[in-house]
């Protein structure tokens, strides 16, 4: 059993402490917006915020995440108001297949928290998610739109 605080709610989940947080989120908490892509922290599809920091949840164990504030893509909006990154993603029609985009959006949201006006170099350094469809152009444009707002 573990207590995880996900999107503002503390859940008691029947999960072993060494289970990757990704699978606790997807299978035990039932939040499937966070995606499995590689399981080895390479692709970024499983990116969530842990105490505000973008982390690849496949590489974080449940025991490491206990007592911390976990935010998933489902918890990014405030009630019915979408996060500015989500708004920009819709305005720029960023997703293609969309499978990597939960992770991409979480990574970008964390970057913008830290650097509200990132340069191209900042984006290049911080955003390392894989997108096989190749949405990078729209990702970059959407970030700049938010930064210039």
């Amino acid at each position, binding site marked *: 059993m573990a207590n995880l605080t996900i999107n503002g709610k503390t859940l008691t989940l029947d999960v072993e402490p060494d289970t990757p947080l990704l699978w606790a989120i997807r299978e035990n908490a039932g939040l*499937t917006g966070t995606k499995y892509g590689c*399981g080895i922290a390479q692709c970024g599809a499983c990116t969530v915020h842990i105490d505000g920091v973008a982390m690849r949840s496949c590489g974080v164990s449940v025991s490491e995440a206990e007592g911390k504030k976990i935010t998933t893509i489902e918890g990014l909006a405030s009630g019915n108001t979408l996060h500015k990154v989500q708004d920009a993603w819709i305005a720029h029609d960023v997703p293609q*297949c*969309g499978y990597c985009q939960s992770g991409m959006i979480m990574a970008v949201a964390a970057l913008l928290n830290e650097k509200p006006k990132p340069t191209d170099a900042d984006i290049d350094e911080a955003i390392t998610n894989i997108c*096989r*469809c*190749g949405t990078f152009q729209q990702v970059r444009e959407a970030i700049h739109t938010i930064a210039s707002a």
Partner: protein
Amino acid sequence: MNKHISPRLNRRAFVIGTAAVGAGLAIGLDIPFGGPAVVRAADGSPEIGAWVVVRPDDTVVIRIARSEMGQGSLTGLAQLVAEELECDWTKVTTEYPTPGQSVARKRVWGDFSTGGSRGIRSSQDYVRKGGATARVMLIQAAADAWKVPASECTAANSVITHKPSGRTTTYGKVAEAAAKLTPPADVKLKDPKDWKLIGKGVKRLDTVDKTTGAMIYGADVKLPGMLNAAIKDCPVFGGKLKSFDEAKIAGMKGVKKVVKVGDTAVAVVADTWWHAKTALEALPITWDEGDNAKVSSASIAKWLAEGLDDSQPAYVGNKNGDAKAAIAGAARKVEAVYSYPYQNHATMEPMNATALYTADKCEVWCGTQNGEAAFAAVLEASGLPAEKCDVHKVMLGGGFGRRGQTDYVRQAVIIAKQMPGTPIKLLWSREEDMAHGRYHPITQCKMTGAFDANDNLIALHYRLSGQSILFSLRPEALQNGMDPAAFQGVAQSGEAAVGYSVPNLLVEHAMRNPHVPPGFWRGVNVNHNAIYMECFMDELAQAAGQDPLEFRRKLMGNHPKHLAVLNAVAEKIGWSTPAPQGVYRGIAQVMGYGSYVAGAAEISVTDGSKIKVHRIVASTDPGYVVNPAQVERQVAGSFVYGLSALFYGGCTVKDGKIEQTNFDTYNSMRINEMPKVETVMVPSGGFWGGVGEPTIGVAAPAVLNAYFAATGKRVRSVPLRDQNITFA
């Protein structure tokens, strides 16, 4: 070798399956007695023909038979229907009919397959007619109610107006009456000059859920009482499962059952997938690897190299004049050998399917590029007839050709059949996905060009050696043993015709099929053929002492559409003016999937091995552009996919197995490596070409030719990482 169901077999299964099912009642079907009955969607709203449902609140539901996997066809197809329907685009939504429903209604929605960049181009005619038919019926229903001639009524934005009286009504108000009318036998489609929605870069219809985590992909499917399965198939293709020691994992948490899947694989079923995967990794498995365990990349390369020799048999795919004689008597000849490796699709979402089997029903939920092929796989694996099976399509986390195959669907059903009544979600690990792809085929190519004394190209001998996709996946499509698709991009004519006229030309293919299963990988055979031809064109230009663009232009007089896209990129990148200091250019063109494309790159190279791509310009002539915003994304995405394969890709074989296991050994480009792609659309009209794939053909050769311009070194094999060439 794995056995695959061919599309032809699928259709046979449908005929048998439909005999027992009542005829559907929709446009295009014969209605035996009385008038047509109203066919209703699940929410009770009436169909106005099979493609359109109109709700009382004027919402229009457009049926989409093809699959959305990121390429944007869902939105493009809806635009085609809506254009003719004259409905309010802001009230359009879409739904997938199921393959089972389609079969029960005599395939009223036509082909479901979504590959070969065909989604729009091969259904544009009948889906537009579906929209036009519904419009005519809705107008007729309003005219009947007003007791006026339909010819006095017009429709726009879901509003019908009787011009003489000024009366109006809406589609939602007349839908019930329209649904009862007999559809017109023939409808006239709009002249392209009158299109209002086709050609407009409207927003995709599926974006919002992809930004909130709400979109359901196959891996996200949840059913009551569902269990999860992890699978391991014999890592040597063609090998078999010998035994496994179930007792060793009996006490592991969550494990419910260990099952054999066919002759080659074993799966662990557990409460969660993490438990299933953890137990599977602990399960001792013995394989019968068979003779294929002796195969390596080196042994394959040696076998293919032998096929480059003229003494070996080969199929002739394109020929004019006498290339061999012209080469023999030429003033000068140039020769080069190129190669292209296996590639994995590496869709972001690994393969998966959820199956529920009971004694009298089998249903599957999955992402698939071919709903009908998946359906046929369910019939075969379940042993149940068509009316007891169905496939529910969900969003694909990438396809690129991989999800046109149905191996994972069949596996899910085989597992579920061993646990009747329990829904089973089978999810492959990334490692399983890398080990059991349907790989871009491996080839080599020897090219020989010959010049006369005035440096005119008089002959070209293009000899491919390597794997045929159709041999493995669709043997019925071979022509006397020859794979016509092997010549994509270098064919005499058709949708992938070569763009050069050479007086003496010989294009041939020595077919050699290693045991690694090939598949349709975005761009398919255009990928390597465009690299071979376009890089060699550069070599020939260099040998002739001519500019690569001018050299090509001289051979393209009879190919105006190929030339037009090449000229478009040349102009946009500024070919006639010098590149910035330290920056070098490369150019390439090809025809594929009925479209003409060209690309140009500007790169700089540090230390001879670190490449920075500064600019990419890409032009495309797909005839008609349905949604320019989506075309732009497909063109840019093709460069990301194509350059990822060039720099980082390549699957190698050791002991009969694929060596790459995950994104650490099969990497993919990131945002920092990818410049903006400047897309130039030059639609010349009059034909419908594909968009998702053709551009990938020019991505690698444009960069490779620029690399030569920068370094004087020719790179003739992929991936670049093997030669320690990387992104700067």
